[in-house]
């Protein structure tokens, strides 16, 4: 109870101290917010690309386009042969009429399709191989290509692998950016607290003389760093949300043209909490470094 009251008192005093220099406080909070909003924005972009990736399914598949003029029996026999193949997990038949219907529904090309006199699409099998290894897949593709009745076998894993590589690269870039900017935040807080310690030097000396513990002296500075970090985190959240809102508005236009719905997700509650906790922690860390670096130098004489 005693300690709780003491912590509340320090919190209140810290808030007062922040409000005492509103300009400087606001600036520090904004700098923190901007610095953090960059990796947060990058993180959201990556996340949305990953959900896109997952929706498409990263499992490679081979599309088999069949030659025209095959009878239903021939097509069925080819399917059975594929199903018996030991390297193949599953086989899916897509009839040319069904394919056309799907195309008509999912794109805005209904007018064009209605204008066609005949269906230009071939019958197709979609083969799901067991392996994910590129070399094995390539060999399987060649093998299937050679089967009579197969006009063309296409391995669909290439662009997915490229996407994965890009995502990995993006993740690394965002992680590096976050690490660098976090370091900058710690440094900013370190300096802010150093200046505070210097201006409150006399007070520190006096309270040491009348029996204040190190923890008592440290507390207001740690609170200040933490509070500034937390407010910076809130600023980052607001900035990132604002950017998302603007980007979603623009994306809406774009995706409508591509006949799909795709939205950048907003930060989940868990991610938002992590952001706030992390930024508060960074502020606390900077203050802690500063305090342990400078406080012991101040001894009453």
């Amino acid at each position, binding site marked *: 109870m005693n300690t709780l009251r003491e912590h509340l*008192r320090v919190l209140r005093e810290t808030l007062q101290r922040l409000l005492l220099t509103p300009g400087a406080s606001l600036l520090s909070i904004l700098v923190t917010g901007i610095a953090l909003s960059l990796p947060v924005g990058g993180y959201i972009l990556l996340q949305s690309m990953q959900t896109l990736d997952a929706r498409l399914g990263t499992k490679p598949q081979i599309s088999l386009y069949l030659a025209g003029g095959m009878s239903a029996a021939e097509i069925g026999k080819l399917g059975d042969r594929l199903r018996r193949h030991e390297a193949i997990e599953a086989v899916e038949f897509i009839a040319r009429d069904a394919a056309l219907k799907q195309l008509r529904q999912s794109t805005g090309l209904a007018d064009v399709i209605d204008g066609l006199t005949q269906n230009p699409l071939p019958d197709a099998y979609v083969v799901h191989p067991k392996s994910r290894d590129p070399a094995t897949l390539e060999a399987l593709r060649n093998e299937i290509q050679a089967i009579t009745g197969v006009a063309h076998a296409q391995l669909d894993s290439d662009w997915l692998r490229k996407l994965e590589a890009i995502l990995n690269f993006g993740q690394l870039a965002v992680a590096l950016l976050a690490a660098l900017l976090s370091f900058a935040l710690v440094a900013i807080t370190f300096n802010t607290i150093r200046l505070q310690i210097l201006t409150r030097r006399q*007070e520190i000396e006096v309270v040491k003389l009348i*029996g204040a513990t190190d923890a008592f002296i440290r507390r207001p500075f740690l609170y200040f760093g933490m509070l500034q970090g937390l407010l910076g985190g809130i600023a980052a959240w607001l900035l990132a949300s604002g950017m998302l809102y603007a980007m979603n508005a623009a994306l809406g236009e774009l995706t409508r043209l591509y006949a799909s719905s795709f939205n950048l997700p907003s930060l989940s509650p868990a991610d938002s909490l992590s952001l706030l906790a992390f930024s508060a922690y960074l502020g606390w860390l900077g203050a802690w470094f500063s305090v342990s670096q400078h406080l012991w130098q101040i*001894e009453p004489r």
Partner: protein
Amino acid sequence: MIQFNQVYKRYPGGHEALKNVSFGIAEGEMVYLTGHSGAGKSTLLKLIAAIERPTSGSVLVRGQNIRSIKREAIPPLRRNFGLVFQDHKLLFDRNAFDNVLLPLQICGFDPREAAKRVRAALDKVGLLAREKANPIALSGGEQQRLCIARAIVNHPNILLADEPTGNLDVEYAHEIMAIFQSFHQVGVTLIISTHDEGVLAKFPARVLHLKQGELQ
């Protein structure tokens, strides 16, 4: 309560502030520390308050040796003291009330109980009407009394006063000494450094006289 045994204090550069000082002060005793400026009075008080450590010899305060005291043990030790400084060491970013409140905040006092104690201490030094004033608006004598209020608010066992009447005229000086005398009467151990002959004559007590770092 306080025991000095063959204490030497040498500063970097070779200046010897205290030479072979030995004495004891019993609980509830009132003692004057006299001598010219530079005789080592302040150094001696700093050793008692663990602001400095002796170069050799032992300084025992409430059974703890200042020479080897651990850093963590210093704050609890200092809470037994009331310190009155020649330069007051008041904080000008808060009013008189908050200055006196400081030692109680450090100990984590209940705010209502603390407020009562602060007002009692301010009343004792005759500054109750000035609790809202910033110390910078107070006269030299009032500042000194405010410093005393801060020193006693915590009900210390030991009061250390470094030239408490140093820059004050006789009337103020006697007022402050009367306050000290009243603490002595309730059992507080008092160590007052002074070179004010008038005070010594009017409020007699045991005298420790220092001359060039040596006890006479």
